C-alpha cells in the first residue's frame, strides 16, 4: 500500500531522537521517555513490513508487534518502579548529583 521509504526514514529519525534523549538528558524520567521512543521506532518498522505486498496483509509481523508491545510496557513499568525508589531515597531525579560510583 504505502512505499516503505517513509517508514524507514521515520524509524531512523525516531531512533536518533531516542538515542539523543538517552545521551543528553539528566532526568531519570526523561531517560525512560527516550527508551519508549526507541521501542516505538522498532515496532513501527515491523508493522510497516506487513503492508509491503500490494493487495495483501501479512499477519506475522503484526503478531510479533503485539507481543513486543506487552514486553516493552513491562520493562518501562519496572523502570518507573526503580525511579520511584531513587526518588524515595534522595528526593531528586538528577543523575549528575547522584553519581556516586566512579571508576
Amino acid at each position, binding site marked *: 500500500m504505502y512505499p516503505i521509504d517513509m517508514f524507514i526514514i521515520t*524509524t531512523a529519525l525516531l*531512533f536518533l531522537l*531516542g*538515542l539523543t534523549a*538517552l545521551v543528553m538528558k539528566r532526568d*531519570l524520567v526523561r*531517560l*525512560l521517555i527516550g*527508551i519508549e521512543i*526507541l*521501542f516505538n*521506532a*522498532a*515496532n513501527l*518498522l*515491523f508493522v510497516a*513490513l506487513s503492508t509491503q505486498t500490494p493487495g495483501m496483509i501479512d499477519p*506475522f*509481523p503484526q503478531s*510479533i508487534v503485539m*507481543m*513486543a508491545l506487552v*514486553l*516493552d510496557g*513491562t*520493562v*518501562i513499568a*519496572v*523502570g518507573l518502579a*526503580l*525511579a520511584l*525508589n*531513587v526518588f524515595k*531515597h*534522595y528526593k531528586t531525579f538528577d543523575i549528575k548529583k*547522584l*553519581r*556516586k*560510583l566512579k*571508576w
Partner: protein
Amino acid sequence: MVGQEIISQGLQLPLPILITLLGGMATPFIGLISEKMRLKLTDVWMVLVSALSLYGVYTLYDQVSKMPSKVLLIYSWGQAPPFGGCFEIDMLGVYMAFSIGLLSLLVSVYSISYMEHETRVPEFNTLVIFMVSGMYGIVMSGDLFTLFIFWELMGLSSYVLVSFLKRKWGPIEAGFKYLIMSATAGAFLLLSMALIYGMAGTLNFAALASTLRGAPMTPWTILLFATLIVGFGVKSAIVPLHTWLPDAHPEAPSPISALLSGIVIETGLYAMTRVLYIAFEPDFFKMPIAALALVTMTVGNLLALRQNDLKRMLAYSSIGQVGYMLIGISSGLTYGLLGTCLHIFNHSLMKGMAFLSVGSIVHETGTRDINKLKGVGRMMPWTTLSIFVAFMGLGGVPGTSGFISKFILFNASIGAGISILALAGVLNSTLSMAYYLRVLIALLSKRTEDTIEAKEAPLLMVGVGMVMAVLIIVLGFYPGPIVGFASEASKSLIEGLGNYIGAVL
C-alpha cells in the same frame, strides 16, 4: 475452532523450562504459607526446583543423544516451525543448560544462609527461579522471538535482583543504569529482528540458516550485524558496551553477583554466537569479533589493576574473561568453539566460586575494601582456600581446569590465523595474575590495626565453596568427561548445522 485445538493437542515445553516456570509460579504462595508458619520454606523450595531442573537437563541429554541427528525439536499445538515458536535443542543447548543448572543449584544452597537476615526473601527466591527459567529458555529456543521473550524474562528479574538491597544507594543506582542500558539493547534487538524478517521472511533459526546464510556484504547486512552486536553485546559485557557491569556486579547481593558473572553473561554470549553462526558465514564476522576480543580483554584486565574494591575488581576480571571467550568465537573453527564452551563452564564455576567466597568475607566483615581486609584470611581459612583455588583457575595455572580452556583458546586463534590474539591473551593472563596475587597477599598478610574482626563464615557458605574447589581441581587433572561433552557441543554448532536445518525443514 481455535479453542478446541488448544485443549486437544496441548502445550509442550522442554522439561527444565516447565519445572522452573511452574516452580516460580508456586513460590509466592509457598512464601505466604511460610510467613504464617514462620518457617523458611521458600529457600528449600528454590533448592528443590534447581535440583529438579538439573534432573530435567539430564533427561534432555538422554533424549538428545539417542536421536540419530542429535537435535530435538519441540513445538506445541499445530504450530508449524517456520512460523511458530519452537524449541530446538542440540548438544550445545544441553551443555549450556547443564552449566546453568549446576551453578544455579550451588548458588541456591549458598543463598539459604546468605539471605537469612534479609527482608522480602520469598520475592528474592521467586525472581531467582524466574531468571534461571529465562536462561533455560534462551539456550533451548529455536526461534528469534521466543529467544527475545525469554531474554526479557531473564532481564526483568535481573534488574530487580541487582538492586535488591535497597537500603543503600549503590544498588539502586547500579540497577537503574543496568536497566537503561539493557532496555536500549532490547530495542536494538527488536530492530534487528525487523531487519531479519524484512530480508528473509522468517525468524526461525533453521530456516534462516538455509536462506540468509550466504548473503554478500551489503550495507543492509552490515547494519544488521551492527545492531545484533549492540543488542546482544550489552548483556555479554563487550567493550564499549560494558559500563553497567562494574557498577552492577559489586552492588548486587553476592549470590546474584555469582549468577550474573558466572552464567548470565555467558548466556548472552551464547545467544550472540548462535545468531551469528546461523545468519552469517564465519568469514563475515571473523575480523570484527577478533578486534572486539582484543579490546575487551585488554580493557577488562587493565582497569582491574586500579581497583581497591574487591568485588569491582572481580567484575572487571569478568569483562577480561569474556574477551577470552570471544577469541574462540572469532576463530570460526570447531576447535575454537570447543575452547569457548570449555571456558564458559570453567568460568561459571571459578568466577561463581570467587564471588561466593568473597561474599562470605563481605557477609562477615561488612566491607569490600582490600586495604581494610588485610589479614582477614588468617581468621577465615577455608574461605581463603577456596579463593586461592578460584584465582589459580582464573589465572590459568596448570593443574586447574582454567589452564586447559585457555590453552585451547590460544591454540585455536593461532590456527585461525590471528596470532596477535594469542599473544595478547598470554600477556593478559600474566596481568590478571598480578591483581589476583595482590588480593591473596592482602588477605594472608599480618593484621594491621584497621583490620576488622571476623570469624569463619556459616557452614553452608563454606561447604559450597569447598565443593566447587574440589570440582575445579578434579576437572583440572581429569578433564576427560567435560572436554568430551564440550567437543560434542561445539561440533553441533558448526558441523551439525545440516542436522539442525534438517530437523525443521
